[in-house]
């Protein structure tokens, strides 16, 4: 009898999470499913309207625009971010004097974030007195009205994402340091140049890290809120998906409409992630036999 109770002792420890899972995940998801079918300002009684929210969303030019803006942003910011982070990681993996100082400088963007940085970018991108246009004037270019011009708003956001790329380099750096040196040595004996080594050793060995960052990048891009909310951009021309969702819910109190948007967002992220997972056998290489089980952690200590 006592033994039977003991079998369940572990549940005491995970109980907070199980409770939280039901209160803050399962119940809200069920609730959200219902809210999506209602017209509700959250003060009066919800009115069931079936699929109306979803139908009107696809006729709402602001919704379609926010979707377009977010997709275009993701399409540029994610690949460019991955390439830049990877490039930085490869370079800072070279052992030269002062490399730790450079590494620290380069991953500063991972440390600083929030409203402060969003405001800083607004100031840097100021068309008349901002830093970027001043630097451009040095080489004879009169810079655009970055955040005020619908054509330049998205490039501005992509530029901010690339600025943050140094912050993303650390996962790649950790991955690079886990690649056994012997692989490169035997390739060198075979006369491989740096490109061959990069293409046939570094890239495949890092593909799990790229895969991870790609998935996280997709989720992050579609959920972009903080700086998009603070910076805005060219009126509503560059309104991101989450900002429009927030506005609907908390400025216009259209809870049903906003929840329908959340479901569409969820489905988009789900489909894209599934797509990445499904294609992963084609390009993600897992070298189970090269890693000695869970020894990985101790290696990191050497840095």
């Amino acid at each position, binding site marked *: 009898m006592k033994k039977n109770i003991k079998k369940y002792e572990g549940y005491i420890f995970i109980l907070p999470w199980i409770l939280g899972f039901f209160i803050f995940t399962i119940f809200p998801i069920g609730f959200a499913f219902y809210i999506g079918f209602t017209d509700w300002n959250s003060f009066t009684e919800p009115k069931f309207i079936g699929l109306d929210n979803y139908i009107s969303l696809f006729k709402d030019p602001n919704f379609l625009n926010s979707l377009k803006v977010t997709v275009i942003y993701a399409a540029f910011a994610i690949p460019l971010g991955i390439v830049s982070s990877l490039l930085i990681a490869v370079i800072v993996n070279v052992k030269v004097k002062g490399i730790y100082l450079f590494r620290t400088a380069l991953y500063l963007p991972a440390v600083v974030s929030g409203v402060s940085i969003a405001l800083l970018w607004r100031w840097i991108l100021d068309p008349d007195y901002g*830093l970027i246009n001043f630097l451009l004037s040095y080489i004879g270019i009169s810079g655009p009205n970055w955040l005020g011009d619908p054509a330049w708003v998205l490039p501005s956001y992509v530029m901010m994402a690339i600025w943050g790329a140094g912050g993303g380099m650390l996962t790649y750096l950790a991955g690079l340091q886990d690649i056994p040196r012997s692989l490169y040595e035997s390739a060198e004996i075979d006369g491989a140049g740096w490109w061959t080594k990069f293409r046939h050793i570094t890239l495949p060995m890092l593909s799990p890290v790229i895969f991870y960052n790609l998935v996280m990048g997709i989720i992050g891009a579609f959920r972009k809120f903080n700086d998009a909310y603070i910076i805005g951009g060219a009126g509503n021309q560059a309104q991101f998906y989450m900002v429009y969702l927030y506005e609907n819910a908390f400025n216009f109190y259209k809870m049903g409409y906003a929840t329908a948007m959340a479901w569409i967002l969820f489905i988009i992220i789900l489909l894209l992630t599934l797509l990445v997972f499904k294609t992963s056998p084609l390009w993600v290489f897992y070298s189970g036999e090269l890693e000695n089980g869970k020894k990985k952690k101790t290696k990191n200590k050497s840095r």
Partner: protein
Amino acid sequence: MPSLTITQRKRIQTIFVYLFLIVSSTATVLPLLWMISTSLKSGSVIFQIPPQWFPDSLHWENYQRAITDIPFFLYLKNTVIITFFRMIAEVFVSALVAYGFARFDFPGKNIWFMILLSTIMLPGEITMIPVFIMFSKLGWINTFKPLIVPAFFGGQAVFVFLLRQFFLTIPRELEEAALMDGASRWQIFYKIFLPLSKPALVTIALFSFQGSWNDLLGPLMYLNDSNKFTLQLGLAMFNGMTKVEWGPLMAASLLVLLPTLVLFFSLQKYFVEGISITGIKG
């Protein structure tokens, strides 16, 4: 094609590496230096072309303005309260749950663990509105409770996962000896696991700090009364003022960044290791 010796090739490579490092780290740091420079300039110098990197006179009164134009210390207090309780809850509860998953065998464990992992991927936007309505029905709008209480229910799934991995590396011999001496599982958690996991716990505390300190959406949703604002919300409000004054605004922004920067530089090792393992970043 002239053939290069190995040393020549190495030298060219080094030059190229330094060139890249200098250009990219300058591009990274320059905006932050610009921020510092602006925060010390007077209104007229800010709008001067070409701009001065080192202003002739340092206008510390921008900092004075930053803490008086908005009730800075009130917002600081609010932010510290929220961040502190959230951090304590997230670290402690995540550790508790992680211990349960790492050291117990109970029916259904694997299913629960799979569910935990899948919630990491679940975007919070789906639950955002229902949870908001839940809290508003409880009358918790305009209090810190909606920002703090959820942390006590399971911490964060990523943290649980991370700590579980860490706990798995702790040798079982230690607790077996303690069990022999009649220690309870709770005592083992509290007296053996927590002290042994200090590095992992510090890493998680740092991420938790960064997450709460920089949170904008949560306070924006739940705090309407300007006396309850957090620093991020206060900054956002500063931003909305009719005439943007960049000097005080950059000074305020820097003050808000300062605690994160100090923590980062003093606990850099944990930060770097944490990011390499989890890929989490602000």
